[in-house]
């Protein structure tokens, strides 16, 4: 059914089966998008890891297809983002239709001057394939396919993991266990941890198909289209000329009936016309929930991605949120494993990423409520918005067919040093993601160090910078100056996950050192 060739990744007999057990610094459960990304980030910082996955292939089905700019910036460190851009469909614009009329066009990246576009649509199986390739080439990463976690026993300073393989069971000891094992997280279940939140009952049908006709790159969203007059439809293009068509079915639909090819074809025929021909790639009926764990860190067990929090798909916040999680976690875990930061630094992973998850859940719940109003007055306001949109620009801004993933804000994090110079009128403040900009012949994101980076504006040579930070002098008078609200002397401390930790109007090594200590949990200023 699928045009994608699923390859099988090699299973190898684990050394532990033959009695050679050594405690591993980090064991990662789950080889989806988050697990391998975390493994690569740790390896880049000298921390080896073992990745356990019960399967031996990539994501079945396209699943998370919208790869956001901030995820591409993470993967670019491993040299695979250009492949994703080349393979995928770059899109920045979207169109919203009411019945048969286009009522709203939006541009997600209205300003040029970023290395990566707002979004690249690429099936999850390609993302995972590219990640696996990099992981398999990395000596510090051991990818263990067909290794299923069947037991987890937490201890004060390590975790004992029981693993089932085709050759039998073995136990593995980890200083840290990171569960990136998805929304049904077996690790979370084995530890009996609650996963509370809101359940939504509307059902949606995903039909991934290959059409012969070329279609525009834009994301299209229809409310009440003539071909599906009772509900909404979302259309996305993916690599290999695959289209994702997402039909809202309502609460009462019979999922088994709807999944039948003849019924899917009937809907597609109404949508694309009687002349159109297609092949099916993947069909799925889904409902969704918005849930979040109370804590993402439980002793030596850490949860990330869908295992820790799950949102509705509107806004592309699932996969991209998971990548942001492991980007936040990796550098902290590496410092803790190396003994150069206290374990308490990981508390900030929990607080920062819970704040982000709350923001993602809020946004995606609002989109969901707009797309699937739950009570009559909600529907009346939704329809009023759509009716006013063609003539009133303000109403177009209220149309919420998904507020697409941008880096969340991590305000008031204990790691950040608040602004003390009171004259900032722009630029990303502490707790906000850094902004890319053209610098010289390249990009700012390419100048950043693997660890902390110190952006200094208008200084060729800042002398010795505090250890743990890489100096990135910005000269000239390019766009970066505007984006960072800069004057000569302006200094930004950027965290390894590319959030702003602090900023000053003049470069003061003592202030930067103090901010670095604070950002690594070595002091609470």
């Amino acid at each position, binding site marked *: 059914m699928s045009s994608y060739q699923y390859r099988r990744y090699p299973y190898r007999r684990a050394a532990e089966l033959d009695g050679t057990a050594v405690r591993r610094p980090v064991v990662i459960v789950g080889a989806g998008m988050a697990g391998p990304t975390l493994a690569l980030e740790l390896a880049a910082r000298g921390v080896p890891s073992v990745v356990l996955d019960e399967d031996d292939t990539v994501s079945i089905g396209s699943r998370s297809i919208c790869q956001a700019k901030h995820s591409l910036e993470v993967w670019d460190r491993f040299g695979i983002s250009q492949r994703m851009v080349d393979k995928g469909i770059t899109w920045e614009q979207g169109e919203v239709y009411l019945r048969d009329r286009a009522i709203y066009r939006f541009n997600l990246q209205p300003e040029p001057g970023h290395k990566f576009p707002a979004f690249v649509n690429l099936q999850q199986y390609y993302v995972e394939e590219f990640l696996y390739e990099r992981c398999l080439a990395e000596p510090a990463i051991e990818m263990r396919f067909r290794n299923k976690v069947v037991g987890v026993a937490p201890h004060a300073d390590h975790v004992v993991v029981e693993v089932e393989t085709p050759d039998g069971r073995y136990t593995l000891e980890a200083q840290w266990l990171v569960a990136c094992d998805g929304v049904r997280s077996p690790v979370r279940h084995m530890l009996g941890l609650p996963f509370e939140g809101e359940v939504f009952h509307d059902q949606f049908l995903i039909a991934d198909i290959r059409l012969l006709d070329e279609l525009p790159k834009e994301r299209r969203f229809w409310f009440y289209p003539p071909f599906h007059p009772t509900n909404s439809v979302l259309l996305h293009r993916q690599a290999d000329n695959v289209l994702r068509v997402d039909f809202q079915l309502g609460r009462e639909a019979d999922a088994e009936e709807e999944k039948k090819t003849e019924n899917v074809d009937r809907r597609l025929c109404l949508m694309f016309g009687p002349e159109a021909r297609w092949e099916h790639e993947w069909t799925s009926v889904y409902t969704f929930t918005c849930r979040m764990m109370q804590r993402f860190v439980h002793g030596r067990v850490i949860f990330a991605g869908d295992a820790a929090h799950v949102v509705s798909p509107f806004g592309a916040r699932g996969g991209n949120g998971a990548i942001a999680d492991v980007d936040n976690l990796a550098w902290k875990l590496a410092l803790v494993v190396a003994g150069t930061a206290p374990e308490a630094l990981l508390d900030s992973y929990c607080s920062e990423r819970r704040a982000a998850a709350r923001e993602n859940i809020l946004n995606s719940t609002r989109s969901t409520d707009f797309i699937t109003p739950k009570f009559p007055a909600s529907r009346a306001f939704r329809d*009023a918005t759509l*009716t006013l949109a063609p003539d009133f620009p*303000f*109403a177009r801004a209220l149309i919420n067919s998904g507020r697409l993933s941008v880096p969340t804000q991590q305000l008031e994090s204990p790691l950040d040093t608040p602004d003390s110079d009171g004259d900032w009128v722009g630029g990303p403040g502490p707790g906000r993601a850094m902004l890319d900009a053209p610098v010289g012949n390249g990009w700012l994101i390419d100048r950043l160090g693997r660890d902390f980076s110190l952006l200094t504006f208008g200084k060729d040579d800042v002398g010795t910078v505090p250890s743990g930070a890489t100096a990135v002098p910005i000269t000239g008078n390019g766009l970066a100056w505007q984006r960072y609200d800069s004057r000569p002397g302006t200094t930004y401390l950027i965290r390894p996950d590319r959030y702003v930790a602090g900023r000053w109007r003049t470069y003061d090594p003592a202030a930067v050192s103090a901010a670095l200590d604070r950002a690594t949990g070595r002091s609470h200023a």
Partner: protein
Amino acid sequence: MTALRRTLNLARPDDVYNAIVDAHKGLSDEQCRDFDARLILLLVNHIGDEAVIREALKEAAAT
């Protein structure tokens, strides 16, 4: 922060009041709800002051 105005702000209050009521004449309950939703959105955007809007929401719910 502007507070929600509690004193009269209309030069011809009866005319405005009756214009609103008359606009609903002959509408079904459902049509009224849709009409009111459009009217509220238009006015809310015109007012633009979130504090005033939130105060009005609170007062309308309290009555």
